[in-house]
């Protein structure tokens, strides 16, 4: 390792930063705002996704069997449903057990001894592995002969799926515009540095520095500005999460947040990478434009 070269490179990067501090701070703040937006969006999207997946996985398909089926035929049918690879698990509730459960539930409210016959059908409660497949699985079961009716929270399923999808699309479009704007601002900041150092660049070109070498310190500058903005944003996000999340959980107590844990270390890395990438790309644009002319 040639430490003299490393020191020279870092000196050049530092000189870039020293040239226009005000603009650098603006760039860093802009990156921070964008990353905060991006971070909140990703966090919300992941929470919502996990939440809907959690809710959907709790949705059961209730299958009611025809009364013409005897107990053995009913059990064979249950086997058939269980053999479907999309099915996670099921419970078979024979009509006798169903009646017992009903009696238990209505105890003391209605005199159930009046029920001399059992009006309940044999029932199967099916849980599906992938919540997206609830509808399809229900359709398949419906076609099995011996199945009287199939019920599930169809509206809830489709609505939740559609909501997550729409939120993701709108959010993504907004973030895209923001990221673009940030890249432009970084690119302008670097352009000011490039302009401030145009004499140095001219001399570098004169004495035979390759374009790659000239670019180096500017790209590093963009990278550092982007990463610094991202770190600032992460700090803001961490504070917001610590302050807001417990309140939200308390207010929206009907939502089972415990099933929506977000993988945060992953998110942090993604945001850092996004900030650095925006800075790098912005720098690349402005330096390359200068070197080409």
């Amino acid at each position, binding site marked *: 390792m040639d430490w003299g070269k490393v020191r020279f490179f870092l000196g050049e990067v530092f000189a870039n930063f020293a040239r226009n501090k005000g603009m650098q701070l603006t760039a860093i703040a802009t990156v921070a705002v964008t990353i905060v937006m991006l971070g909140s969006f990703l966090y919300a999207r992941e929470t919502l996704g996990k939440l809907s997946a959690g809710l959907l996985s709790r949705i059961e398909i209730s299958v009611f069997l025809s009364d013409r089926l005897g107990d053995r035929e009913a059990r064979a049918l249950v086997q058939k449903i269980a053999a479907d690879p999309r099915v996670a698990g099921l419970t078979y509730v024979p009509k006798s057990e169903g009646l017992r459960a009903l009696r238990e539930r209505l105890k003391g409210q209605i005199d159930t001894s009046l029920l001399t016959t059992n009006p309940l059908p044999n029932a199967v409660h099916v849980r599906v592995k992938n919540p997206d497949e609830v509808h399809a699985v229900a359709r398949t079961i419906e076609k099995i002969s011996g199945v009287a009716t199939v019920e599930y929270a169809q509206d809830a399923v489709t609505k939740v799926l559609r909501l997550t999808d729409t939120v993701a699309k709108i959010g993504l479009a907004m973030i895209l515009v923001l990221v673009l704007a940030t890249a432009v601002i970084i690119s302008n900041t670097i352009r000011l540095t490039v302009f401030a150092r145009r004499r140095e660049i*001219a001399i570098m070109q004169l*004495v035979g520095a390759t374009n790659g070498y000239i670019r180096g310190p500017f790209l590093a500058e963009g990278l550092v500005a982007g990463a610094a903005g991202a770190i600032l944003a992460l700090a803001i996000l961490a504070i917001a999460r610590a302050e807001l999340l417990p309140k939200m959980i308390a207010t929206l107590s009907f939502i089972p947040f415990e099933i929506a844990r977000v993988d945060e270390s992953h998110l942090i890395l993604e945001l850092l990478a996004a900030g650095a990438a925006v800075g790098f790309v912005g720098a690349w644009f402005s330096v390359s434009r200068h070197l080409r002319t």
Partner: protein
Amino acid sequence: MSLVYPNGVRALDGVTLEIEKGSFVFLIGSSGMGKSSLLRLLYREKVPTQGEVYVDGTRVDAMRRSKVPYLRRNVGVVFQDYKLLANKTVWENVAFALQVTGARTHDVMRQVPRCLDLVGLAHKSRMFPSELSGGEQQRCAIARALVNNPKILLCDEPTGNLDPSTTSEIMELLLRINLKGTTIVVATHNQAVVDRMRRRVVRLENGRIVSDEERGYYFLGLGQSSVLSG
């Protein structure tokens, strides 16, 4: 070769010139006659609109853009306005030229003192350009041009801003560099310099070569008479 600038100015018009390795050549002519343009073709700041340029056996005008830096390491350039970096010391200015080519620190530490010694600035290596006289600044610029060990040194009005005695010091320095084997091309309109040195003189007028003499004088008449008397 010819060079026409985008604004229609015909800077060079059918110029053919060959400069031998290790020689010392003056390009003379009034301002705007094409001296600087000719030099610019040699370090590929400009590409001729017509014709070919060869430097050290390599065709320069058709060179790929990515190869230009390697040409520049073989061609040192010195300007009238020195083009030093004001926020760097003498040492740093010279080292900069080496560092930006990705040279190893070991080589920087060896080459920079050697060049500063050669131009006689070793004792002022920690000073900034603003603390130096014009002659010293030009020495610094020459050291920077030489630090990559170029085969050719191009000087565009190197003494344009200097007084006569400093001018002759700089010319002596260039002569010494030439004796070490570096080819030197000096564009100038300084009559005294040209007349004293008695080297090859190429005269440009309106983008054309109007005379080319070994051991020439600044004014054509004098040169001819010397040939006659010699």
